[in-house]
């Protein structure tokens, strides 16, 4: 029998031949970002220009697509790679610029300096990655860009580097080698042992040790077992899993196949949100390609291990990210959670033992296998190993996808990677963990990112949403925003979550409308604590977190809303005050518009607003053509 590893090596060299025969890498390769985010920013039009140029005579250029490297605010992005040269990274490329890049760079070899984003920094970690390291390629391409200088890319190692729809590209970066390696000479128990020793913990939110979950599922005696990849990504401001899948779908597939081998399962299911059509399309193609290349299906790489993957679509219910609800949804039911135990490892999909991990968790697996538990273990903090991907957004200069070693501080992300708050505004808070997480104030900025430190500070690691909030946002309203979301998403199965969140939302809404009463804060705290204790699933158990953490860290803002009827961010409409300024020409329009009869004045003279009658509807503010009405 030929060893799986030898079969893989043969496949890889064939793939490399195909790549070179298409003149990939041998000459110039143009990479155009084609992830959802890039396309939204207009990359399709840019792609068309390059494709057109290639069609009409540019023969030494290979145009190819890539997933997103995570630089949202620079999109669309284009890289020009040439053998032996530092790749040139062009940002915010318009079709007009693309035409110039074709004429000047591709035809005449002139690098257009003012559009290129090649930084001065050298990536401090670059040296750590010897030739051929799975995570090294990223730094060869992007190692000189400042945005990446504090990042380390394990999960996103291939995102923005390879064409996600081309399995040859994945093979060229040692793709499927980890799977071949385990099939060749690592018995399942030893695979599980490696995962355990690596210290990898679940990236879907709870941070449960991955190896222990694998071991538990492996121990169950059952004819049938399932592997599930949780790609539901419910946090409404997060896009890590989507980008990972859009940029490097085979990594997830490879991780799942290794998991299947380790626990003795032959069937994997990826549960993914229907709202991610491009990610679904890329997964479908990757699964089909992996099947025809022999990395999925019967007798993988000539071994006696068989494994197949199918895709199931979610349908827009946040609670379905919770593992027992997700399982009900795959079974074709309403996505209601159920009490645990039994845990899915024991009794999961169709009552069979089921191993469920998050996309990012799966994407770590091939690296853990190739470079070993010790290597992985050397990154991060004592109890949190490896890296974490965050979707950085909100009031921050560099929005995007960042992957940092555990232990990096929040300050480093906000100021070094994110380049601070735009528009000279003041930092107010950072939110992690989405609707299940919390808001931390400035004093917590030096908190190192790991599961335990973030929890101690009053937030959670969560799945990777990270929103920066500046002085223009009202923290009471931020809490209200998240609670409104969870309230809406509560499945209604248990009363504390269903009714309790409704009560809390009513109180918060009252406060933001200027109708807050003495004692409201305490009521919120009592309700929140009760809901956390008494709810059945993680949704209810964590729903009060955004409220409780803002009360803890921004209590003064709550008090101002309640006692002084003031919103320091000027965000809550009902707490604004309307006054007529000296710009008023006395046209009388506002007086007619006011539904409360609060405006008085004679034509051609300055009008006045009676504060006691004003109901803050903003009708006058919108009606005045002279910008004469101020609201503060």
């Amino acid at each position, binding site marked *: 029998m030929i060893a799986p590893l030898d079969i893989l090596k043969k496949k890889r060299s064939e793939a490399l031949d195909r790549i070179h025969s298409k003149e990939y890498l041998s000459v110039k390769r143009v990479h155009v970002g084609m992830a959802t*985010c890039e396309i*939204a920013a207009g990359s399709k039009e840019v792609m068309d220009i390059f494709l057109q140029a290639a069609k009409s005579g540019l023969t030494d250029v290979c145009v190819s697509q890539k997933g997103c490297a995570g630089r949202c605010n620079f999109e669309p992005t284009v890289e020009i790679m040439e053998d032996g040269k530092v790749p040139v990274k062009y940002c915010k490329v318009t079709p007009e610029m693309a035409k110039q890049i074709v004429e000047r760079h591709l035809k005449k070899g002139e690098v257009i300096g003012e559009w290129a984003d090649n930084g001065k920094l050298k990536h401090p970690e670059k040296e750590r990655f010897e030739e051929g390291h799975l995570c090294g390629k990223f730094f060869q391409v992007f190692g000189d860009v400042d945005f990446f200088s504090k990042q380390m890319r394990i999960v996103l190692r291939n995102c923005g580097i390879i064409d996600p729809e081309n399995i040859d590209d994945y093979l060229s970066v040692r793709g499927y080698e980890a799977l071949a390696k385990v099939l060749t000479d690592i018995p399942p128990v030893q695979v599980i042992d490696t995962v355990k020793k690596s210290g990898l913990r679940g990236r879907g939110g709870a941070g449960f040790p991955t190896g222990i979950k694998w071991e538990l599922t492996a121990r169950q005696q059952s004819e049938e077992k399932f592997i599930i990849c949780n790609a539901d990504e419910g946090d409404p*401001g997060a896009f890590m899993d989507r980008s990972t899948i859009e940029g490097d779908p085979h990594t997830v597939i490879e991780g799942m196949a290794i998991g299947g081998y380790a626990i003795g399962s032959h069937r994997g299911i990826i549960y993914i949100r*229907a*709202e991610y059509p491009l990610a679904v399309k890329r997964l479908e193609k990757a699964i089909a390609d992996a099947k025809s290349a022999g990395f999925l299906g019967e007798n993988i790489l000539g071994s006696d291990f068989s494994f197949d993957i199918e895709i199931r679509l979610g349908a827009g219910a946040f609670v379905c990210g919770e593992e027992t609800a997700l399982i009900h949804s795959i079974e*074709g039911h309403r996505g209601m959670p159920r009490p645990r135990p039994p845990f899915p490892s024991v009794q999961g999909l169709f009552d069979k033992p089921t191993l469920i991990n998050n996309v990012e968790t799966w994407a770590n697996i091939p690296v853990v296998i190739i470079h070993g538990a010790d290597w992985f273990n050397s990154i991060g903090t004592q109890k949190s190993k490896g890296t974490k991907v965050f979707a950085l957004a909100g009031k921050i200069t560099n929005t995007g996808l960042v992957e940092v070693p555990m232990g990096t501080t929040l300050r480093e992300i906000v100021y070094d990677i994110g380049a601070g708050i735009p528009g000279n505004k003041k930092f107010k808070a950072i939110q992690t963990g989405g609707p299940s997480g919390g808001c931390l104030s400035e004093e917590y900025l030096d908190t190192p990112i790991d599961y335990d430190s973030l929890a101690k500070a009053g937030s959670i690691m969560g799945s990777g949403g990270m929103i920066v909030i500046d002085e223009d946002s009202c923290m009471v309203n931020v809490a209200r925003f998240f609670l409104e979301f969870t309230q809406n998403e509560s*499945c209604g199965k248990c009363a504390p979550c269903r009714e309790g969140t409704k009560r809390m939302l009513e109180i918060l809404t009252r406060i933001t409308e200027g109708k807050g009463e003495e004692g409201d804060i305490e009521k919120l705290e009592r309700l929140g604590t009760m809901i956390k204790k008494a709810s059945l699933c993680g949704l209810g158990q964590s729903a009060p977190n955004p409220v409780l953490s803002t009360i803890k860290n921004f209590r003064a803002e709550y008090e101002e809303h309640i006692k002084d009827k003031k919103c320091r961010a000027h965000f809550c409409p009902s707490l604004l005050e309307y006054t007529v300024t000296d710009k008023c020409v006395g046209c009388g329009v506002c007086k007619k518009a006011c539904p409360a009869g609060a405006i008085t004045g004679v034509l051609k003279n300055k009008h006045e607003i009676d504060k006691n009658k004003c109901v803050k509807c903003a009708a006058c503010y919108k009606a005045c053509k002279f910008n004469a009405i101020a609201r503060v």
Partner: protein
Amino acid sequence: MSCSAKAQDSKLSELNRFMDALKGLSRSESNLIAILHKVQELYGYLDRDAMDEVAATMNIPTAHIWGVATFYHYFKLKKPGKHVIAICLGTACYIKGAGEILEKLKEELKIDIGGMTSDGLFSLEEARCLGACGLAPVMMIDGKIYGSLTPKKVSEILQGYRKRSSGE
């Protein structure tokens, strides 16, 4: 047979082909959500007659099917307008002023989320993160994303759609 009746017919036969392929599989009833996706893909929403067909073919009680369908926000129970506007109310968009954009949309269209304009031209939906946070606040019209919105830009975009539709 009229043209639209024919179109209805071909949709129904495509739906039936889809279900036939699933019926033979073990645990076929677990594919209910996939079937509902198919109905929505074909009809734009969960058409009643199509749902009755699903119940009959898959041998699943109608009440169960609607129970599942109504649990998931993604499924539309009413026929949408010609252009579907999805305003992103994800966290990044909220922080960057999605509230103001939503107000503007409601004011211009004179409908609430879930509603359809009286001329049937637009329906308004909310979305949670369209994956373009870097361009927040954003909205999507029929799959096309519009970013860095301001209330003024919203008016202009809607005006564009109205003009094109009256010119047709």
